[in-house]
């Protein structure tokens, strides 16, 4: 093994130790259900620590859902934690009710944290999320999800009626006439 190879291996080791010795956070703003006017919409903020060291002083504050277009139900859209152990996650939930249909822009919420205990500089990560959220009106939602049982029943009835009406006329002649001559009672 040459001197150069040993040196480069040592260098890679140093870099990986320096790199792995920090917390790495992934931040996700999660909206699972499709938003509908008047229906409760849970929003989840999840922070994963994928690094090898704990993260400290985690803090975020989201203001996307604190406008007059949404009704607050429960939870909070801000979060603060002392630390987050490596290979673990924390989450914050907020439940809101959209008041108006339309497209709402979602911002990338900023999460501040310290990547190690002795670190003075605040690290920043932004939430992975959709750039916009489409809130469906209740009528559209009903139209999309309804099984249309009533409409299908009516359709079948109309179809049957358009066949049954001429059938009833034919049946009348069949019962009361024989070979086109009125039956004598």
């Amino acid at each position, binding site marked *: 093994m040459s001197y150069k190879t040993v040196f480069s291996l040592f260098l890679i080791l140093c870099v990986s130790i320096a790199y792995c010795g920090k917390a790495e956070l992934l931040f996700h703003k999660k909206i699972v259900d499709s938003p509908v006017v008047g229906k409760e919409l849970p929003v989840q903020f999840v922070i994963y620590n994928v690094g090898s060291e704990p993260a400290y002083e985690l803090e975020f504050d989201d203001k996307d859902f604190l406008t007059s277009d949404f009704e607050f139900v429960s939870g909070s859209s801000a979060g603060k934690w002392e630390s987050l152990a490596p290979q673990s996650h924390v989450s914050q939930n907020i439940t809101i009710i959209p008041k108006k249909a339309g497209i709402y822009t979602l911002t990338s919420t900023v999460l501040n944290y310290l990547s190690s205990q002795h670190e003075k500089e605040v690290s920043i990560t932004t939430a992975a999320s959709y750039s916009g959220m489409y809130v469906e009106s209740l009528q559209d939602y009903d139209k999309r999800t309804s099984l249309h049982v009533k409409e299908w029943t009516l359709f079948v009835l109309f179809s049957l009626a358009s066949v049954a009406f*001429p059938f009833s006329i034919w049946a009348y*002649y069949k019962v009361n006439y024989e*070979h*086109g001559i009125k039956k004598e009672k």
Partner: protein
Amino acid sequence: MVELDDEFSAFRNENIVSNEQRVVYFINSFIAALVPVYLYHAIFSMSFDSYMIVYGSVTLFAAIVLTFAYNNVYRVKRLKLSATREHMLIPKTKQTNGLDRKKVLAAKRESQAVVTSHEATALSIMYNNAVFLVSMLAFSFIIFKNVPLVYNYIVSVSLAAGFTTFLSTSSKH
């Protein structure tokens, strides 16, 4: 009697379609063509406001095409029914003289022709409506299921009406 003769002469003549029949055909075919309108409007949410012209023209086209189907099947049915019936009329009263017997027979023949014609019309409308609706469903849900909604409606209803009329030209009913 002369008036009665005039009224029924159209029914007797095979190739002439009376206005009365045309009206009956058109009312029935129009109702049959309205059934898909309900399907597309209420279930597939194709609104009246946006597609009024499409609905109107396709319904009118289907209704007119179906009237031909009604008439074709009607003629075959009436021919077959009357062929088995005409000899059934036997003058049974012996008291009446020859002239009266002829009159009675003619009147009976007239009424039999009317009944046969009504029966044939009813059978024809029933058969064609059933074929039209089943073929419309087959076209829209199976053959053209991936076609966009508006085109699906236009093609399915028009082709179903055309297909029904095509089938009606067969003499095997």
